[in-house]
């Protein structure tokens, strides 16, 4: 009896509101271990919806954003995806800050034929292509390719790798090793560290003492890469250090220290170097607009992750505008037909075989000089 009463009470509490507007759903990891991804994503989405509504919404209709915090738990993400579709009756879902949460949401979205734009990196999300699933971040494999391209230009043929064992680090390590051969490069030392480790000198010493290492690559995100960078400096390793797109934010330079980070190279997005973009760069107006708005609204500097959410929202609103109606299947068709849409991450052109729509040009090879990002091309 008690449970029934509670169920009824709950039912009344969360019964859906009227749907005279375009309802967009989102489930991101605004708290928990992946909060550094989900928090800027949530803030970006709220900011963009507010701005869009102030400008008259899409096709004259107001946008209603239903935002949930899944805390990085795939099981919760699945429940929220169900709730967004069945109870909140949204026409599209943005979200899934991590690969795990994205994979959970996508199976619900596919079952219910609701378009879903993921904000996570792994290639599995869109490969093989699923009809209703799209994503905005470039894949780890593309980051590897960009880095190896740069190494190739420098004539580097033998490298050492030190990777985090977290989801991001492990996935990128695997992807890099898959494509490294295509660039005539061999991995001669392969070390790992736990994301919570406070010192990586042992692994770095081992890499330094391996014969023939010409450069070191560190796939990982969070604090790990900063520690690697500091230890690298302390050990005075005299080889180029490459970091991944996972640490492409000002926070990395702060954590590692400008001194230790000097000369570190990594593939980043246009967002990080908004001021350095050429005036005729198609991404420039958009990147600057997002950067100004976000920094004004939150008081924190922009990062790549908030940019992913920005792009997802752009793609979605662009698709709804073109579709002319907020019908899930029409939106899906329109997203798939996205052509030459400039976002903060790159320029998106999707088709039936490609639900990401970015190529390597989306990445810019950056180098840290004097505590600032500089462009090398």
């Amino acid at each position, binding site marked *: 009896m*008690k*449970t*029934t009463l*509670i*169920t*009824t009470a*709950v*039912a009344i*509490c*969360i*019964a*859906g509101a009227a749907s005279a507007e375009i309802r967009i759903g989102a489930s991101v990891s605004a*708290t928990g271990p992946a909060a550094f991804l989900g928090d800027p994503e949530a803030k970006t989405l709220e900011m963009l919806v507010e701005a869009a509504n102030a400008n008259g919404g899409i096709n004259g209709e107001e946008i209603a954003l239903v935002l*949930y*915090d899944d805390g990085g*738990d*795939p*099981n*919760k993400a*699945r*429940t929220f995806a*169900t*709730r967004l*579709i*069945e*109870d909140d009756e949204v026409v599209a879902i943005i979200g899934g800050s991590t*690969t*795990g949460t994205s*994979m*959970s949401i996508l*199976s619900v979205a596919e*079952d219910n034929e609701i378009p879903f734009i993921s904000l996570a990196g*792994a290639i*599995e999300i869109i490969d093989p292509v699923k009809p209703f699933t799209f994503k905005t971040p470039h894949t780890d494999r593309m980051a590897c390719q960009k880095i190896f391209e740069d190494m190739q230009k420098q004539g580097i043929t033998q490298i050492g790798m030190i990777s985090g*064992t*977290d*989801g991001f680090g*492990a*996935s990128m390590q*695997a992807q890099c090793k898959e494509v490294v051969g295509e660039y005539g490069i061999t991995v001669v030392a392969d070390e790992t560290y736990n994301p919570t480790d406070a010192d990586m000198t042992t692994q770095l010493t081992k890499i330094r003492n391996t014969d023939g290492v010409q450069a070191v690559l560190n796939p990982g995100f969070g604090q790990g890469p900063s520690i690697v960078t500091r230890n690298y400096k302390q050990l005075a390793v005299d080889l180029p250090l490459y970091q991944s797109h996972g640490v492409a934010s000002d926070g990395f330079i702060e954590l590692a220290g400008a001194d230790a980070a000097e000369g570190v190279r990594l593939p980043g997005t246009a967002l990080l170097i908004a001021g350095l973009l050429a005036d005729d760069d198609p991404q420039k107006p958009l990147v600057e607009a997002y950067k100004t708005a976000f920094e004004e609204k939150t008081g924190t500097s922009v990062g790549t992750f908030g940019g992913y959410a920005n792009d997802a929202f752009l793609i979605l609103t662009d698709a709804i505008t073109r579709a002319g109606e907020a019908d899930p299947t029409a939106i899906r068709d329109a997203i798939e037909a996205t052509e030459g849409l400039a976002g903060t991450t790159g320029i998106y052109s999707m088709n039936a075989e490609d639900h990401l729509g970015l190529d390597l040009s989306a990445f810019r090879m950056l180098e840290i000089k004097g505590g600032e990002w500089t462009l090398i091309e």
Partner: protein
Amino acid sequence: MKLSPKTATLLVLVLLIALSPLLFPSGYYYRVGALIFVNAIAVTGIVILTGYAGQISLGHAGFAGIGAYACALAPVHLGLHPGLAMVLGAVISGLMAFLVGRPILRLKGYYLGVATLGFGILISMVLNNERQLTGGPDGMEVPDLGLRGLLKDAGLDLTNGQFWYWFCGIAVIIGAWLALNLFNSPSGRALRALHGSEVAARTVGVDVTRLKLQAFVISAVYASVSGSLLALQNKFITPDVAGFMHSIEMVTMAVLGGVGSVLGAIFGAAVLTLLPQVLTVFAEYEQMVLGLVMMLVMIFLPQGLLPSILRRFRRGDE
């Protein structure tokens, strides 16, 4: 007519599960219901271990992890049907509990808690780090159980949410029935004697070591089945299922609802599964409210929600 407590408990459970859907305004509530049932099964196992036998485990999510990954791995590598994989997972969990339980159940109190905690963390680390097998922290896909398709062919067309609601609901009833039977059996009485005083139980001839091990193995099987059902339902699984927080959640649900009674523990599972869904309104304060509710219950209703409420009702009758 006077119903036995066992029949009454089962009757309440069956009615609740069967009638709740009448009040569901949308398909989403079936999903929440199914999640409550998945947790309820694991928590019923905790009742047997902690409520009956008085032993504590902070690592039961490890068994849930074994059950979940059995359903993900066995169909791919051994060609087993996912349903059989669930059975395989339960068998492995039972064996594992037997092997691990023999040495660690000699420990008492904190020491037992810490040892089981270590076991849970070990399983979670293996799932996280054996990337080539488990997909690492990114998780892996779980094949479809296939039963829903069969039912559809037989003329019973259920949505995914509905199917899992009824499937897990039936599993909860079976689980509760077994646990209640155990409670009333000689073994159950011996377990409760052990809970009261291990020394006293031993002096009257109860084989304490064997019984503790039995309770540990049975509760591990419950956790494993719960993990399997979660994996099959979500069709995707990550090592979070074996994580430390999941272990704590199981114990909290049991203690909150009332660890001595099956119905109470299931009630606890329902409350703790529902609360985060209700509290999305408060977003930022969710964790605070959750913590507050638990503290208040522990201070004012130390026996758990359901037993305390029931006692108050009975007192009112007199």
